């Protein structure tokens, strides 16, 4: 595997993270991160859809008429999401229940169409597949971090298990109600972007 091909997998994980740098997919980062488990499964589902939509559209890229380009992308992405939803319902029923409406909302996730437009339509299938996986995982990683912070401080649990001991509550500790509301996700994303830019100095605007 060439170095450049490999970079299309690793770049979106950190340096060119879709949420932190491209500011894509913020909407769902607010919606599914009150708890860690849906955030994790959402990250994995988006990775699957993003990888396959990139692959399929990269294979089709030379035949797609320019004028209906967006429609073709939407049809492919929507079909993939429908298949993912059906498979989840058939084989991991409890997880699909946990995600409920959010699976369908993957169709509108800006990262997927963004990567198809920006990468898959002008690159070969293999790099496109890796780019899809990388971006999905980069998105998932941010979701998991936000979900971790929000569930821990909002409910005192992780994956539904009690983490903050009962004695803390008896001593007067209370869960932070703000963490259960969407604005807290924006604040956390802001903090992560701040840390991210401090580490990657070339991202800072002069």
């Amino acid at each position: 595997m060439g170095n450049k091909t490999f970079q299309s997998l690793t770049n979106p994980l950190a340096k060119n993270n879709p949420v932190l740098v491209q500011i894509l997919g913020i909407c769902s980062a607010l919606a599914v991160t009150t708890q860690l488990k849906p955030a994790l499964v959402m990250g994995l589902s988006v990775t699957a859809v993003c990888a396959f939509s990139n692959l399929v559209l990269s294979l089709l890229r030379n035949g797609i008429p320019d004028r209906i380009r967006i429609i073709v992308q939407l049809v492919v992405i929507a079909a993939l999401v429908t298949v993912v939803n059906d498979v989840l319902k058939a084989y991991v029923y409890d997880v699909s229940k946990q995600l409920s409406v959010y699976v369908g909302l993957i169709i509108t996730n800006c990262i997927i169409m963004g990567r198809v437009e920006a990468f898959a339509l002008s690159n070969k299938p293999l790099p496109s597949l890796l780019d899809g996986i990388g971006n999905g995982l980069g998105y998932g990683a941010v979701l998991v971090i936000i979900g971790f912070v929000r569930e821990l401080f909002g409910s005192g649990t992780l994956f539904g298990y009690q983490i903050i001991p009962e004695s803390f509550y008896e001593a007067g500790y209370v869960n932070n109600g703000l963490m259960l509301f969407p604005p807290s996700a924006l604040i956390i994303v802001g903090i992560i972007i701040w840390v991210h830019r401090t580490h990657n100095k070339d991202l800072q605007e002069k």
Partner: protein
Amino acid sequence: MSKKGFLGGKNSNAYIVFYSTVMVIIVAVLLAFTSLSLKDRQEANELNEKKDAIVASMGLAKGTYDSVIEAYVVNKEGEVINTTATPLKKLFDLPASFAAGEYPVFENKTTGEVVLPLTGKGLWDDIWGYIALGADMNTIKGAIFDHAGETPGLGAEIATPKYQAQFQGQTIYEGEQLVGINVVKGGAQGAAHSVDAVTGGTKTSDGLENMIKECLKCYDAFFKSRTATPEAEVVETVNAE
């Protein structure tokens, strides 16, 4: 072939119409195939989930449904009626079943406890649940609620065991009057027939309260006929003498 290529080139109208037609047909076949091949598994999952929810509301372990439950359908007068679909199948479209005046009952063959399905509206979408009553048709043995799309961490809390536990031991009758359960904002503080509302989930809590009241009302005659049975028999024997 002309120099413009197949159907006059990539951006001709003919090619676009041809391309979209072929694409839509392929996608339709693919989706129809996926849906059909997974349908049985999905329905089995849903049916199992409903069976497990019914026994779970009685506090029994998963998978015990087939050995302990006897299911039947009653009407508004509390009489058992025959229906074409089984009581379990009724759960797949419960609102329609309630509208048609057919109310499914799941009875524990040994203890005489009954489980009743509930259906209602939350803030965003449907909510539903099962409520298990003791043989006195008054004391709640357990309750399970679920939802299609309430806000996680807020309205969705009605689906947590911690929330559902406070229904245990509550009663739904005040004398002869069916009062249901009040879901009280700010905390029930031990009041009769009352539980705490969900913090930050007022609309979902209101929906939950309405659902319990409206659905149990449909079974009022059934409950009364069940608790009145021994008395009715006594009266009959007296008359016979």
